[in-house]
């Protein structure tokens, strides 16, 4: 009987699952058009598309960076350590996404992007911390994904500003 419900550890060989991460990005993408003066369907579609692209880039570039920065760990784990670390780290987007929904729909703050930016920065840095927990050495594992998150969130913010 499973006695450790809710614990992060998973059996080896189980593939990483990123649907909660992409769901967070889609939710943030859905919220963004509500911050515009006039809600438009085109903005909604473009915003969801943009959020998904940012999400795909955040996940896959993080995995790629962790793999290339820790070749020994990649070989030892059969290429799974980076995927698992990113999966665990990206779960930390959930609180920010829920709070963004509360702020937009309950408090009418029109401030989705600060939540999105904090979410992506926290998730990437936490993925780095997870990599270090798996045996990777050096602060680069936290600083490089934080830099990536900064670039992605800044780019996302700029592109959101261009949406109709």
């Amino acid at each position, binding site marked *: 009987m499973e006695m450790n419900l809710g614990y992060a550890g998973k059996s080896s060989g189980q593939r990483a699952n990123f649907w909660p991460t992409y769901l967070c990005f889609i939710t943030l993408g859905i919220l963004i058009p509500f911050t515009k003066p006039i809600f438009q369907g085109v903005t909604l579609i473009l915003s969801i598309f943009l959020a998904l692209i940012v999400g795909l880039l955040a996940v896959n570039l993080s995995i790629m960076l962790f793999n290339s920065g820790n070749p020994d760990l990649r070989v030892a784990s059969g290429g799974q350590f980076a995927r698992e670390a990113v999966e665990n780290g990206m779960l930390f987007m959930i609180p920010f996404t829920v709070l963004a929904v509360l702020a937009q729909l309950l408090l009418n703050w029109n401030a989705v992007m*600060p939540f999105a930016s904090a979410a992506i920065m926290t998730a990437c840095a936490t993925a780095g911390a997870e990599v270090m927990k798996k045996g990777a050495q050096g602060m680069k594992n936290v600083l490089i994904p934080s830099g990536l998150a900064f670039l992605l969130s800044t780019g996302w913010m700029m592109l959101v500003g261009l949406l109709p």
Partner: protein
Amino acid sequence: MNKLATEAPRWKTALNMVINPGEAVKSQMSKVPWPYSILVSGLSFTLFFMQTGLDLLRTGQIETAAVILIILLGLLYGTAGIALLAVMSWALSRAGKRGYTVDWAISAFGLGYSATLVYALTGLLFSLAFGWKTAVAFGVTGVLWALRPTLFTIKQMSGERTAFSVALSTLCGAILLLGWALLGRFGV
């Protein structure tokens, strides 16, 4: 190495809480007394609420007396409020069973607001120097940045339960933001 960590000045521990909260929570929190941490969170929320008051004062929604009331509410929120939140999280995580004391929980929660303090100070500077409305842009952003140390603290207290810590951190964040929104209205 351990000795170095224990001898690190408290401001460095606070900085580490911003940069690498996972490590700070794991190895340095037992050396930081809870009154010091509560001072950090108390000051953070006092300055954050001050900006809320100044924003409302500028738009003519409140008088100076109400600004002072909001500032005092901020102080109460950042001290008693954060301590209560820490105790609630400690109890729900059953952290006592894992050897974490209430003092440890309050200390970790309070110091988690180091990033909020940086944002609050920066926001106040912009508010006073340029007359900007900074409560949401700087204040709320600062509170959001404190969510990461909170997540790590709860994760540590709950024995690395990711789903539980994500859920409880969401609850803590929601209580803080909704509480701030309600108190802001009370001040009006």
